[in-house]
């Protein structure tokens, strides 16, 4: 069951350097994200726009593109990446399995059902609202669906002790929810199908300050609170029984983690659709590089996840400009081979040693 190795003591000493380096990487990615886009803007213009904004001077020229389109989008990408990667790290720690991702406890599938239900069946409801509020309706439904599915998985998983029940409940609920998605897909019209398929590929398009402000709290809170569970997660690596002997209540830990992860992932998926692979890949890569100590792994995942999603979103905006690629395609396309390379390199290294 326990396929994540135990942390070694030396990680502790170098964690400030690692986190500092990753923070620098995040900042570099943010600058890249601000500098890239369909509209060709020089570095001077971008920095000038930021400077004028910070100094409170009136915007000029294309400042609006940087301040109203790119900046909220970069911040959203950072938050979404951090939320997904930290959630992934926490879930992998909770299940002591590096192949787990946040979607396992039903969040992504539940959110998909909520969003698709709103797209397909909520037509009348959405038509009654102004168009802009209507697009929030899909996000709200997705958020609600994600939380509901997770709650269901958690309640079923609690019926019997141990993580295995939680995991199997997740698999079963996922299957049922996906059947609902399939049924709604059948009911959908041509246009709804297109909306649906784009939603499942994820996109940060349409991010503005209002949307950012709406989803920032539910994503930021778990990203800040999850690292507080690092010691408990480390203890859990020894086994549930051992963790309990060390004074950590596995049931309470599970409840907290599932709630925080549901909040963060639910909000991220609700606003930006399904952005695959970040929650699985980032913590896994970091663990391969610097070991499984959650005191380092959780904050490092937040920083690296943010940087990855910012970079992927920048690529998505530039690759087929003036159109945009769905970001989920890029995270999987870039992440998959890199992951494989890292995995093979490490395993081959181990075999040779």
């Amino acid at each position, binding site marked *: 069951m326990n396929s994540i190795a135990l942390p070694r003591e030396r990680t502790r000493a170098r964690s400030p350097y690692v986190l500092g380096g990753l923070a620098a990487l995040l900042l570099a990615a943010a600058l890249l994200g601000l500098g890239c*886009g*369909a*509209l*060709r803007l020089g570095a001077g213009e971008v920095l000038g726009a930021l400077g004028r904004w910070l100094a409170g001077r009136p915007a000029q020229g294309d400042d*609006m*593109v940087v301040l*109203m*389109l*790119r900046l909220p989008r970069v911040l959203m990408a950072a938050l979404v990446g951090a939320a997904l990667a930290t959630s992934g790290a926490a879930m992998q720690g909770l299940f002591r399995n590096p192949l787990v991702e946040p979607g396992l406890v039903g969040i992504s599938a539940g959110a998909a059902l909520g969003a698709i239900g709103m797209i397909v069946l909520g037509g009348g409801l959405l*038509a009654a609202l102004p*168009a*802009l509020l*209507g*697009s929030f309706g899909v996000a709200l439904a997705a958020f609600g669906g994600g939380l509901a599915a997770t709650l269901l998985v958690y309640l079923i998983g609690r019926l019997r002790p141990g993580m295995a029940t939680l995991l199997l409940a997740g698999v079963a609920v996922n299957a049922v929810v996906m059947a609902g998605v399939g049924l709604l897909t*059948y009911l*959908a*019209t*041509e*246009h709804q199908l*297109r*909306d649906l398929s*784009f939603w499942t590929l994820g*996109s940060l*398009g*349409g991010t*503005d300050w209002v*949307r950012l402000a709406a989803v920032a709290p539910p994503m930021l809170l778990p990203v800040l609170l999850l690292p507080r569970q690092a010691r408990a997660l480390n203890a859990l690596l020894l086994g549930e029984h051992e963790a309990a002997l060390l004074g950590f209540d596995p049931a309470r830990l599970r409840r907290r983690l599932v709630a925080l992860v549901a909040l963060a992932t639910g909000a991220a998926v609700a606003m930006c659709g399904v952005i695959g692979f970040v929650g699985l890949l980032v913590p896994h890569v970091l663990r391969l590089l610097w070991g499984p100590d959650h005191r380092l792994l959780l904050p490092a995942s937040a920083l690296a996840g943010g940087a990855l999603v910012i970079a992927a979103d920048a690529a998505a*905006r530039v690759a*087929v*400009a*003036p*159109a*945009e690629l769905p970001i989920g395609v890029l995270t999987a396309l870039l992440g998959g081979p890199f992951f494989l390379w890292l995995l093979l390199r490490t395993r081959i290294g181990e075999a040779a040693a």
Partner: protein
Amino acid sequence: MRDEAIVSGKGERRGVRASAGPSSALRAPPPGGRRKNPRVPGGRGENPRGVGEGIPLPAGESAGRACPGPDPGRARVRPKRGAGHRLHAFLATLALLCLPALHAAETAAPPPQRVVALGGDITEAVYELGAGAALVGVDSTSQWPDAARKLPDVGYVRQLAAEGVLSLRPSLVLATHDAGPPQALAQLRQAGVRIETMPPTRAPADVVAKLRRLGALLGRPAAAERLARQLEGEYAALARDVAAMPRHPRVAFLMTAGAGSPMAAGRDTAADAAIALAGGVNAVHGYAGYKPVSAEALVALAPDAIVLMRERADALGGVDGVLGLPGVAQTPAGRARRIVFVDGQALLGFGPRNAAQERALQRTLAAAAP
């Protein structure tokens, strides 16, 4: 889908108001106030459907539109004041109404320099109106004419990226009714881009009204009027031909076929409207939208003709390929080899090429009637 038909009255009303523009404009500002950027919301209109779907415009209405009106917001730019202004206004109105060419030359706005067209039907219309040179970008559904495919593509029309459109520096964005997402359009408006959204069209009157409105927006009212009249003539001829059909054959429109069960068009689809206009009866009336139908269901529908998109003809292996699909050979259409390929975008886009396509389909269906 449901409210698309309802909104159709809107474009028509605008057309009528525009032609009434000059008289009211010279006396007082029109009640609508400044309408430089009328925002037509996605699919909700308060007006009932315009007169006569599927029937050519009544003569009176066509005459009323003979003078292409200027944008009401523009006509007010030169209000005449002074003694006897009422008489002057009256005479001026008469002159304007009777001299469309002069009138157009006087008030036509300078044509917009950089236009982005979002929607296959809109791009077709821009080219047909001779304004193709002003186009700087299109969406991915704009596949006709070939020149449109060489322009920068801003992606799928319902998944637009604000910055992508902005990077083309458009002075005017002409958008189909379902362009989106709404927040991208809001961001574009916030950036000062002028976006004109066209109402959905599935009836001849709406197709023609859309064309006139596009002509006015592109500063080409005369070209729009010529094309509109030609289309009105075509639709009138179509209506006559349809009325002369002794029997209206049952038609199944298969959107996709080949892999899995074919997707047949039900009620409330563009294909349903196109079939009805061409004098056919949609064999599918049990559901709305596009849904997969089993081979058995296809036999039970008993279509006299099966219509498919020409874009898919090669992949399907032509008529013989379609006849080889499960169930097709057992339908009346299959037994008589009445498999019809139509140009999907031209027919279902309900743009300027729709009329010719409808007439071609009508001729095929008329010949098909046993």
